[in-house]
């Protein structure tokens, strides 16, 4: 979508509405850049849900108990639901699902980099529930207060389910951390591998985040990346302590004065590498989605053709 110049007067009125904490609805006037930024954000968010099904889905067939198999399957199904919900919310801005999906499949759209890491053990999946969903919740809790109505409503609903997912993940992490020596090792190893990628989920430092200021001005976001990251650390370090998990950051230290944990620097080379498509699983994830799409082509065509035939029959009959 080409960015057009917005009427300055309307723009001013719009900013006033935002500043008054009003909610913007699909039929309302909005700046074209507001629209395009939201489309970008929301479709990325939707893609993340959909691609996020893969690393966890990788363990459904190997879950070590029926209860855990059902919980995991249900979680992954929820993610598909979130994806659907977010695609619909994005459509209220005039960007069709087909269109944004096509951008994903062509590698033009992004999704959360965290899903470009592999799930090597069962503990990984549990740690994803705890850390990754934990990080997502922090972000989404903020977005639930976003100025765009459909987005904020989607977030409220999604957040509720993700809190449940996080709880389930944390529960198993706790069980493993207090389980057999092998389980303890397995879950600690998973935390060692997932901690830093999760920290990266909040994006670059505020100084390197060009979109942040604009999004905050428009009431889409209300906190900066670094603020969100700090909340994540504060909360999850405590949770780790509670079950005897070590956080793989030697610089981690509680600052009595600020009441916050201080932590080490993220490996930004790794961050940008993964963003650029060079993570351990970027290719595999794209391949999986492309293959699913390709293999499903005949099914979608059949459904369309069948619907067309039925329509025709109805028309004839009437």
């Amino acid at each position, binding site marked *: 979508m080409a960015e057009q110049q917005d009427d300055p007067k309307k723009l001013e009125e719009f900013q006033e509405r935002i500043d008054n904490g009003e909610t913007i609805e699909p039929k309302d006037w909005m700046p074209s850049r507001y629209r395009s930024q939201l489309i970008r954000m929301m479709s990325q968010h939707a893609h993340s849900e959909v691609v996020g099904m893969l690393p966890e889905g990788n363990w459904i067939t190997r879950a070590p108990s029926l209860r855990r198999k059902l919980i995991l*399957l*249900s979680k*992954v199904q929820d993610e598909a639901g979130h994806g659907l919900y977010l695609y619909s919310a994005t459509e209220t801005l005039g960007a069709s699902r087909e269109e944004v999906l096509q951008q994903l499949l062509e590698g033009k759209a992004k999704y959360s980099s965290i899903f470009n890491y592999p799930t090597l053990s069962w503990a990984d999946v549990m740690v994803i529930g705890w850390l990754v969903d934990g990080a997502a919740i922090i972000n989404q809790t903020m977005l639930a207060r976003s100025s765009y109505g459909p987005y904020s409503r989607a977030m409220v609903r999604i957040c509720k389910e993700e809190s449940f997912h996080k709880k389930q993940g944390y529960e198993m992490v706790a069980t493993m951390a207090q389980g057999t020596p092998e389980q303890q090792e397995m879950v600690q190893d998973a935390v060692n591998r997932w901690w830093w990628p999760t920290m990266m989920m909040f994006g670059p430092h505020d100084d390197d985040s060009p979109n942040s200021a604009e999004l905050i001005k428009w009431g889409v976001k209300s906190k900066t990346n670094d603020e969100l990251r700090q909340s994540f650390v504060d909360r999850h370090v405590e949770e780790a302590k509670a079950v005897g998990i070590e956080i793989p950051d030697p610089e981690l230290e509680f600052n009595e004065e600020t009441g916050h944990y201080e932590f080490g620097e993220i490996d930004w080379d790794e961050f940008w590498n993964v963003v650029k498509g060079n993570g351990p699983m970027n290719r595999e994830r794209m391949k999986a989605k492309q293959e699913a799409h390709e293999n499903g082509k005949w*099914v979608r*065509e059949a459904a369309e053709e069948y619907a067309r035939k039925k329509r025709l029959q109805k028309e004839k009959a009437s």
Partner: protein
Amino acid sequence: KEAFFEYLIRLADDRLILGHRLSEWCGHGPILEEDIALANVALDDIGHSAALYEYAAEVEGEGRHRDDIVYFRDDVDYRNVKMVELPKGDFGFTIARQLLFSAFSYFLYERLKDAEDEQFSGMIDKHLKEIKYHLRHSREWTLRLGDGTEESHDRIQAAFNELWTYTDALFYMDEVDELLIEKGIAVDLNDFKDEWKQLVTDVLEEATLEVPDFDQFMQSGGRKGLHTEHLGHLLAEMQHLRRSYPDATWE
């Protein structure tokens, strides 16, 4: 008691293994709605099996957990029909199998819900509602694929042709059934075989598909532990982690 245990295991194994195959679709479906729908059916199937295993363990009365039954039996001790263990194939194959199996399940559960064992019939009654949805879902897709494009027609026709030889085994009965029919728990599967054939025939015909020959050679063996080679691979994957750390808690 032993017969009832065996009966519950047969029901449960069918549903667990079918649910496993369905769960393999998760994240790889043709459209997002079907990722959700197939996961939903998988959740139901595995959920139903979990309830059945749990009750089986209770009936057995030896203090086993349902997971012991699931994770520590080899393929020759599994009692599912061969149909459900075949690889998931393409979406057409999955739908065709769902139609054949869900239709069978539907008629079976319609009768089992009056079984003279309250805990059992209560469970069945609860699951029946979901099975009706499975049947509707697979019927609708059979129509879409059968009466969709030429390619989809050919694909799902091929799927039915391939699956047909495995259908008769759904109606397998032996002394386990006889004993439990006497007790008012099991039902005579012959009672609804014609109805099942009629339903399947109706759906296939409406979907402009050819109904394969019901009188062709039919595979058997699953209920006696004689499976295809696929089940062993499925179980290797399913059980590997749990068997690797048998002393650990995974609830």
